[in-house]
Structure formats: structure tokens, C-alpha cells
């Protein structure tokens, strides 16, 4: 049991034990896949965390140099396999940016519906897995009950439940089936009261608050400096969301949609819905706020899907046929970032004029979010390490590509 004196430089340890190098992972149940953490601990206090990556590296970028952009779509699914739709969207937008391809308006609304449903599904897994990290099993099953319904909806659209390859450069592989929108509306209607259950189960649960408030506090300037994006950034109070502040090609998908960026602006979160209050122990930028931002984003995504559905059903025109398999890419390069559930996922595309790109690069959001984990875990207890890594909500497929 370490006691903290007022001078942070001196940390007193109860019993002098020599430092121990403890290995957590790569097959550790709480590290969200194959991440190996080497903790330098003194008794229970962790003094340093080293991440060892690369266990899930599949050379997606090297393969990208031999495939045409549409053939590379399945590789983007396997990066962040919990939000595959958003990955496809990112890659399609980057290719369209290089081609300067003009997208029919109906396709934009279709993409908004699909991307926001993908965000809900991804945040559900993030919330459930975070409950697992803190030791409670039930929220995980409640989360997956709802996610299953979402996956059924995706299965109707594109036949797959996890790696969809549905959104392609030029639009999507197929239009939304008949009656699908009514099913989405039915799902959303029964999903909204369930969110109150999740808040009761975790967000306002006193033990959850004790385990997450004030743990892994990420100051705003450190977040920006380490390149953290998405809920990590907004959890530290920075008002930045690519759906509003991103590149023109990405933001005009969302123009006309009423939504507020979920971040604590001058002390309070947006009040467009009834949200549980922020507990007094919560410090801006700690694990609780990151979790809270994700939960509010789910509610925001529901609104966006509803607005998208109205616009989709009222705009005439073609839903966006995919581009030809071997369209020639103009010489040049393009880089575009989109707001994925875990952060900003960027795709960099260099082409030399042929149908096969010269170089393909994927900027992973969790890659930078995880790099700050060692700073956050400094001086915390061993039990806090999964709590912090869980709040970062990493997916190893995206980090190792």
C-alpha cells in the first residue's frame, strides 16, 4: 500500500521490494487481442509500461501496392474489425478524393446511415469490453444483445456480419433492401430506453466510478501532442470532431445534419438529451469521461441515423454505383481522415497513373491513442492498467495492420 505524500517527487513504499518486470499479454484476457505490455512494477505500483506490438501485423500496406483500390476494400475491413463500415468509408473517400469523383447526394445519406449504425455497434462492444476489464460480466452480454440486432440489420444490407466490404469508392455495392429503413426505425425505438440501463449498470455505478474517476488523467495538450483523436481527445475536453471540422469532402456528407460535438465545453456536455450527471470525483480527461463521451456519442448517432433516413428516403437519384474495377488513378497523392468510432482513421494514397496505387498507407487512430498509455499508467496500480487500456478502447487489428 503506497501512501502519497504532498510532494509528488517522493513516493513512499511500504515494504522495500526490488523492481519486478511483469509480463501482461500477449494472450492476456484483458488486452483486447494480442497486445503485450511489460510492466515495471514495485509491489503493486506500476512505474513504467512498455507496449510490444506487431503480433497481428499482416502487411496490409505491402499488399495494397499490388491491388486496385476496390480489391483492397476487404483489407480495410480487417483493420478495425469492430467498425468495418467506417473503415470502408474512410478508404472510399480517400480514393474518391484522388479521383475527384462526384458522388450522388443519395449515396452521401446512405453512407451517413451506415457509418453511424457502425459507430453504435462499435461503441457497444467498447462499453461491454470495458465492463469486462473492470470485472463485471453482465454489461458485456447486454451490449451484445443489442449489437446482435444491429449485425442482423447489416447482414440484410450486405450479407456479412463483421467484415462487410459494403461501402466502396463510388458509393456502395448495393442499395438498401426494401423495408430495411422500417426495421432500423424499429430497432432505434426499442434501443433508446436500453441506454438508460447501460448508464445504471456502469456509468452511475458507484464501484465503476470508484474504479475510473481520476484514473489515467490525460491533459489536453498531452493528448494533442501524442496525436490522440476521437473520444480520447473529446474526453479531455477538446472540442474537435472531423464530422464538423474535417476536410470538405467528408464534412459535406454531414452538412445540414443537426448535431453537436460531444465534449465538455466550459464545464458542461451538450444537453440535447437527458444524460446522467458527471460525478464530483470525475476529473476532465480521466477514464470515466472517455467512457461517458462514447455513451453520449451512441445517443448522438441515433439522432444522426434518423436524420439520415429522412434525407435518404426523400432524395431522388442513384444510390451510387461503385467505380469500375480497373479505373486508372490520376498521378498524384491524396490523404483523407475520417472520424471513426475510435478516432481519426487516415488513408494516404500515392499513385503513378496506373490502376494499381504506388503506395498505400493507413494512419491508425488506436496506434497514437495507445502510445500515450505509458504516460497515463505511470505510478498507477496494476489493477488500473486494464482500466486505462480499456478506456483507450484499442483494437489490435487496426494498430498492427
Amino acid at each position: 500500500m503506497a501512501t502519497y505524500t504532498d510532494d509528488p517527487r517522493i513516493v513512499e513504499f511500504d515494504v522495500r521490494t526490488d523492481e519486478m518486470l511483469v509480463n501482461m499479454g500477449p494472450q492476456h484476457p484483458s488486452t483486447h487481442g494480442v497486445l503485450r505490455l511489460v510492466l515495471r512494477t514495485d509491489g503493486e505500483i506500476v512505474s513504467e509500461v512498455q507496449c510490444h506490438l506487431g503480433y497481428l501485423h499482416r502487411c496490409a500496406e505491402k499488399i495494397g501496392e499490388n491491388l486496385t483500390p476496390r480489391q483492397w476494400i476487404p483489407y480495410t475491413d480487417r483493420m478495425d474489425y469492430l467498425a468495418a463500415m467506417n473503415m470502408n468509408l474512410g478508404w472510399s473517400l480517400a480514393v474518391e478524393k484522388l479521383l475527384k469523383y462526384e458522388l450522388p447526394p443519395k449515396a452521401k445519406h446512405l453512407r451517413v446511415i451506415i457509418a453511424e449504425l457502425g459507430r453504435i455497434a462499435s461503441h457497444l462492444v467498447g462499453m461491454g469490453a470495458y465492463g469486462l476489464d473492470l470485472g463485471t460480466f453482465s454489461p458485456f452480454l447486454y451490449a451484445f444483445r443489442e449489437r446482435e440486432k444491429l449485425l442482423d440489420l447489416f447482414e440484410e444490407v450486405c450479407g456479412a456480419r463483421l467484415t462487410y466490404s459494403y461501402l466502396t469508392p463510388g458509393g456502395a455495392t448495393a442499395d438498401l433492401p426494401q423495408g430495411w429503413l422500417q426495421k432500423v426505425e424499429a430497432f432505434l425505438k426499442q434501443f433508446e430506453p436500453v441506454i438508460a440501463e447501460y448508464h445504471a449498470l456502469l456509468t452511475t455505478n458507484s464501484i465503476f466510478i470508484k474504479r475510473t474517476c481520476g484514473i489515467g488523467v490525460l491533459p489536453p495538450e498531452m493528448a494533442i501532442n501524442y496525436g490522440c483523436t476521437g473520444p480520447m481527445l473529446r474526453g479531455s475536453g477538446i472540442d474537435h470532431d472531423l464530422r464538423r471540422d474535417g476536410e470538405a469532402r467528408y464534412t459535406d456528407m454531414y452538412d445540414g445534419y443537426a448535431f453537436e460535438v460531444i465534449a465538455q465545453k466550459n464545464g458542461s456536455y451538450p444537453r440535447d438529451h437527458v444524460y446522467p450527471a458527471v460525478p464530483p470525483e470525475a476529473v476532465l480527461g480521466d477514464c470515466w469521461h472517455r467512457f461517458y463521451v462514447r455513451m453520449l456519442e451512441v445517443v448522438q448517432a441515433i439522432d444522426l441515423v434518423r436524420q439520415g433516413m429522412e434525407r435518404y428516403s426523400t432524395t431522388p437519384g442513384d444510390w451510387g454505383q461503385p467505380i469500375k474495377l480497373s479505373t486508372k488513378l490520376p498521378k498524384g497523392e491524396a490523404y483523407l481522415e475520417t472520424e471513426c468510432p475510435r478516432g481519426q482513421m487516415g488513408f494516404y494514397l500515392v499513385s503513378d497513373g496506373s490502376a494499381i496505387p504506388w503506395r498505400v498507407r493507413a494512419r491508425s487512430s488506436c496506434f497514437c491513442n495507445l502510445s500515450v498509455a505509458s504516460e497515463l499508467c505511470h505510478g498507477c496500480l496494476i489493477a488500473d492498467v486494464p482500466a486505462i487500456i480499456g478506456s483507450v478502447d484499442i483494437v489490435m487489428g487496426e494498430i498492427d495492420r
Partner: protein
Amino acid sequence: MMLLAAIQWHTFFFLLFSLLTCGFALAVVFSSNVVRMAFFLTISLGAAAGLFFLAGAEFVGAMQFMIYVGGTLVLLIFGVMLTAHERFISMKTKAGEWVMAAFLGGGLFLLLVRATLMVPQWNAPNLQRDQVAQSEVHDSAAIGAAVSAYRADSLPSSSAPPAAAVPAGKSVYLLPFEIVSVHLLVVLIGAGYLARAKKRNPGNAWQA
């Protein structure tokens, strides 16, 4: 089946528990692995508690279990665990030390045996079997009396009026016993505190 009746169960269990106590006490001495020593000590003291139960003193037996084995030995195992790293685990004792230990141990043992044989009642020939009470119900009244300034082993008869029941000058062992245990507690906590190390916390790389 008749053999069953012939066994004096009471002596059988007495022998069992005493063998356990002494056997594991010796095991503690002869074992080289620190953690095994600690565990054998637990079994030995547990068997000693069994002896108390056998003698019908359930309260003292439970007390022995609770205080000795449950408290002190857990503390001892904590100490062993926190320090039992590669270098300390197995301690080889040199031959010279064995001789010294045997000599000292033997001397003390002989002194002890001599002292026990001098007690008149114990070597009286007619120690009948049934004098040793089976396990008829005792109660904690004696303990209560001892706490309120009475000698536990010789309570005054009921006829004496309560006021006179507190004889002057009778010494009561319980109070010094309490003081010693509190003293032991203070010493242990002090040792724990002294073992703390002041360690400079290397400021995290970001601010430095």
C-alpha cells in the same frame, strides 16, 4: 469388532496430535526451504491447538488457532513471501552449526524433562483414565471471572459473600499477558514502518 472397544480413543488422538506437533516441529528445524518451514510451523501449531481441544478447553484451542496460527503465522508467511526471492529461499546450514544446535537443543531438552519429572502429582502411579475429563461442557465464566481480577484456577466457593470474594493480594496473570501482546503489536508495526524506503519518484518523462 471387539478390537474397536479396546482402543482408548482419547489416548489415540492424544498420541496423534503430539506426534504431529513434535514431528513437524522437527521438520521445521531440518527443512531448508523457508516457505516449507513456515508451513510446517503452521501444521505444528495447529496440532498443538488440537491438543487443547482434546483437553476440553475449546476456548483456548480456538484462541490458539485464531491468534497463533491465524494471526502471527500469517504475518510470518507475509514476511517470508515478501523476502523469499531466489537468494533467500533455500538456506544451507553448515555442519558446525548443526553440532552447536544439537548441543544447545539437547541441553534445553534435558532441563525440560528434569523439570517435568520433579512435579509430584504427575508421576503419581494412580493416574486413572477417567480423571481426564472427556469434553463435558465448560463455559467462559471462568475466563470472565479472570478478566475481572479473579484467579481462574481457584475460584472462591459460592457461599462467600460477593464483597469478600475479591481477596486482596491475589495476583492475576491476564493483565500482564495483555500488555505483552499490545507491546508485540507495536513492535511489529514499527518494524513494518522502518522497512519502508524513501524512493525518489522519477518525474514522468512528459513534464521533465
